[in-house]
């Protein structure tokens, strides 16, 4: 049995007993029950498994769990604070920026990372940044609207 691995996920420390080369996605979903992070392709191509590691967007299906040690990991479940949605979540809701919504958690996590790095992105910067997140339903125009709306809200000082 390998030594337990300590992770910090959504501000909470946890110990997991998985081989160190197991994907972070598997550990989040199967061990920690954080199923908001989705398996879409397992090859880092679709973006459905996007989480933040130290604030940066990462494809959790491509990250071995051992690489998450000592870093702060944020999943879609960690964005809501005391019942208050993150502005990006709120904007996706208001812009109705999803159909089947299977891509939505990954889309939101990438957008949060984008707005953290670039608080006021242009539409083409949003498109470029979200290229690695696939929405098969075709809701992209609304997703772009949602990200622009979230940028406005966040610049206006809302949380």
């Amino acid at each position, binding site marked *: 049995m390998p030594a337990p691995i300590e992770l910090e996920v959504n501000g909470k420390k946890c110990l997991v007993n998985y*081989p160190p080369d*197991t994907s972070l996605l*598997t550990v989040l*979903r*199967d061990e920690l*029950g*954080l*199923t*908001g*992070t*989705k*398996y*879409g*392709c*397992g*090859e880092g191509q*679709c973006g*459905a498994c996007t989480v933040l590691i130290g604030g940066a967007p990462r494809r959790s299906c491509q990250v071995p769990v051992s690489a998450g040690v000592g870093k702060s990991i944020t*999943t*879609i*479940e960690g*964005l*809501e604070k005391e019942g208050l*949605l993150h502005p990006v*979540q*709120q904007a*996706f*809701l208001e812009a*109705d920026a*999803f*159909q*089947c*919504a*299977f*891509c*939505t*958690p990954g889309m*939101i996590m990438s957008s949060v990372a984008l707005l953290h790095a670039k608080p006021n992105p242009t539409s083409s910067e949003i498109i470029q940044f979200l290229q690695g997140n*696939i*929405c*098969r*339903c075709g809701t992209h125009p609304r997703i772009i609207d949602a990200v622009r709306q979230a940028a406005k809200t966040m610049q206006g000082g809302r949380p």
Partner: protein
Amino acid sequence: MSDSTNNLFLEPERSEFRAAPIHHFELARRDFFKLLGAGIAVFAIARNSSAMQETAPGPRSFHSEEPPKEITSWLHVGEDGTVTGFTGKVEIGQNIRTSLAQTIADELRVPFESVRMVTADTALTPFDPGTFGSRTTPTMTPQFRRVAAAARDLLIGVAAKEWNVAPEGLIAADAKISDPASGRSLRYAELARGKTLAQNLPAEDPVTPAAQWKIAGKPVPKVDGRAFVTGRHQYTPDLRPAGMLYGKVLRPPSFGATLLSCDDSAAKAMAGVAIVRDGDFIGAAAPTEREAQNAVAAIRAQWKEVPQISNKELFAYLKEKASSSSEARHRNQKGSVNDGLASAAHRLDATYTVAYIAHAPLEPRAAVAEWTGGKLTVWTGTQRPFAVRDDLAAVFHIPEGSVRVIVPDTGSAYGGKHTSDAALEAARLSRAAGHPVKIVWTREEEFTWAYFRPAGVIEVKSGLAADGTLTAWEFHNYHSGSSGIETPYDVSNQRTEYHPVPLVLRSGSYRGLAATANHFARETHMDALARAAKIDPLEFRRKNISDARLRSVLDATAKSFGWPRKKSQEGRASVSQLASKRAATLPPAQKWPSTAHPAPCASFAWWKHSNVAPSSIPMDCAIRSSAR
């Protein structure tokens, strides 16, 4: 290829819309109310069924009767005023959970928030053949509107009886029945209290005209939207019932391969692993996905493979294997194409090919199966829950009543989730393991083992008069299907034909059916003809179409994207930019699955007065059309 395979001609349109067997409603009335609590219920009966004809309009309760068979939807108003609509349709992102609730709220005169929809649960919802063909809104929405109107009348009837007044003067609004004459009112919750009233949908019942809709047709927040943006919604792959194991299936190396021998001793020796071998099916269930994967990898299997058609050979194969004499219903002829071609000033012949295409829903095919004392429950993302139930019952030799299929709101389907593959696999492994088992297909399995939109070859021969009038049109679709095959343009000499071909890969329903391929070929060809005639493509189409409605569609479409726009270098530039960008962004060593396909493309043969030798110009239509 064997005789039996030769008979497998593909007709997705027909199989998708085939008449479903009428299933019997198994829930007894007393169970229905036990399940939902007392209240008021209205049932919609399939049109033309005898049960419907026998139903007298007006409120009545059926004490000793079973609920009528052939029910297609129903509605329940509970003692707490909660309104529940039941339908066998599935939510796959098309937003029917919201739109059907809007309809019910609108017609029943209750707040949108008080309506909830129970969808696609074979134990709770009426039989439904499946969610496909964009039929939910045109068929289920009007039905729920009539059901809600009948429930409203029933509530008015209850209030009228209570107050001993005529129902005609009573008003339903804001989840209340009011009597303007006396000023009295009763809330729906109060009217439903202590009742077990059920009614069949009256044959004729007026519904609210669209102009007076207050909730339907207006934007409302998506039902459960918050669960989707917080990741709380549980799709099938997210379910984890207690004691659940993860399942993996050993896939054959190619289509049609059969198992010769199998050594699973190493896999069986692994702790906590259950191995199932049943005919050509080999799978493993284990406490973690990795253990299941390792177990499957440890199985030594030998397969007998059959020769496969390569992408390179595919289109020639489809032409070669097409049946020479198609059925009359696949042919349509008018005038003489030969005469039309002979009199043409320009001729243009072209061949279009359409690759096999995977549906690629972002949520892969998945199922969780659980056996409890001979009864089976399966959660799975499918468009046809009742068909999956029937498949499970047939495969496991148990009554339909022992199988319950539940469809959690699903991560899209596009026609790709009609079959029960994952459900059968999970159920087979679960039965052997004695635990619930979850199967989630990998993306690789999606691209190799899910059924495809079929490939096709489309050949077009055409002729134009000097003024740009179409004189001849001959259109052959090999294999991909006959949907949308007829040309809407006016051509006095025309022939269209669909040629079925035996299946090469597993193929089935898909969004848009063959209309996608046929429209692609026809409209690409029309653009090429417009260039030949040196006429603007919109004008060229208008010139050759007399149907007023279609002309309006063309005009409205052209207007919406600003056609005609200035002949721009812009358009040209964007093509080359697109092309170079594509080249630049392609990953250097991408490992594509073996079924990867080229984009649809066309080759043209051109000549004028049919005395110039034809030449072949290969084109990438995907890039070309994006320049428009």
